[in-house]
């Protein structure tokens, strides 16, 4: 309990003062004023696709900024054992812009579009009177998508890479088909051998289909697979 050892000598405690009571301390603590949640929180919670969207009638055409959390799969080989851990991290800097065209009424059929075709300024877009009828691909933060993974094949640490002590993270851009299977994936960064192993594994993953107003949609997300030779502490 070293951190709890508080210096109680006379230099730390005003000699002329009696001990502050619990009530006095509570009153003092209340000087720390409360805060209100920022308006952006609502967009971050309700502006991104959930398993079921719609019904609240308050979501219009919006362009929201969301962080890029990544799924970090760690393969640790330590004393001959392979240890897996899944960490939802925030390792990638920056944000991505995700314009979502969401239905305001149950009669309208929703769709979503990829980022760059939308609002470049990142501000709230004017609600679109016309909504593209066919659902296309949407971008989903990996932290949302990862929990819906229903089948995972762990990557195999390439023996050569292990022998050479090669470690690192492979960033994959993954396109998930409407039925939850991996339609396409591309290595954005990482060692070649590790990337091959990561792609071989992740392309076999199956995700729970993402629904947008009850319709399964294609999803693009980011997966990071980290290979390390040291067991995570």
């Amino acid at each position, binding site marked *: 309990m070293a951190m*709890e050892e508080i210096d109680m000598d006379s230099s730390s405690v005003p000699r002329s*003062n009696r001990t502050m009571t619990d009530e006095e301390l509570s009153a003092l603590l209340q000087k720390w004023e409360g805060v209100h949640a920022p308006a952006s*929180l609502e967009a971050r919670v309700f502006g991104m696709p959930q398993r079921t969207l719609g019904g609240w009638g308050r979501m219009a055409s919006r362009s929201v900024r969301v962080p890029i959390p990544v799924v970090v799969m760690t393969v640790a080989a330590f004393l001959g054992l392979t240890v897996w851990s899944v960490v939802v991290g925030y390792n990638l800097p920056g944000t991505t812009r995700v314009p979502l065209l969401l239905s305001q009424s149950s009669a309208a059929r929703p769709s979503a579009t990829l980022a760059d075709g939308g609002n470049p300024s990142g501000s709230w877009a004017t609600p679109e009177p016309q909504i593209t009828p066919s659902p296309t691909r949407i971008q989903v933060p990996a932290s949302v998508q990862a929990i819906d993974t229903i089948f995972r094949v762990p990557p195999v640490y390439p023996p050569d890479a292990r022998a050479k002590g090669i470690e690192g993270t492979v960033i994959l851009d993954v396109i998930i088909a409407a039925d939850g299977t991996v339609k396409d994936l591309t290595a954005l960064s990482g060692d070649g051998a590790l990337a091959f192993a990561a792609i071989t594994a992740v392309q076999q993953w199956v995700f729970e289909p993402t629904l947008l107003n009850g319709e399964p949609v294609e999803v693009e997300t980011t997966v990071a697979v980290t290979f390390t030779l040291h067991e995570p502490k």
Partner: protein
Amino acid sequence: MTDLDCRNAFDEHKDSVYGFALRLTGSAAAAEDLAQDCFLELLRHPGRFDPQRGSLRAYLLGVVRNLALRRWRTERRLESLDDAPGDDRTDAMVAGVSMLVSAAVQSLPPLQREAVLLFEYEGFTLEEIAGITKTEVGAVKSRLHRARERLRLILAPLRNGDGGD
């Protein structure tokens, strides 16, 4: 819990959830991340909230607390959060009583800090805090006691009559 219930829960508890996260982490960005993840957890798994075990607010703050500690452990890899130092922000030059109190609470070890936040700012009882933090009432009482002792020392100059300067 229906979507409408989740929406109402957000409207009712967003300030409490965000405020608790902000006081817990000392970072607006981290607090917004935690609040977002907290409500996404409710949206994705509404069945995990059991009204028999406590209020919705207590459940949500418990989610924030667990997310914060998980993040803390991941980022700082601390073995004992009860003894770990808090953020070293006790800067005598910080202006304003509110900022000084903020800095003092932020300087507490995480588990003492959460006990203070839940008791002093969120108004939970010791038993409720024990439920939220999944620990014994005695442990909560101990953490609160140690936190208060520490805060008394740090905040002594702010007592009425001392002037704080």
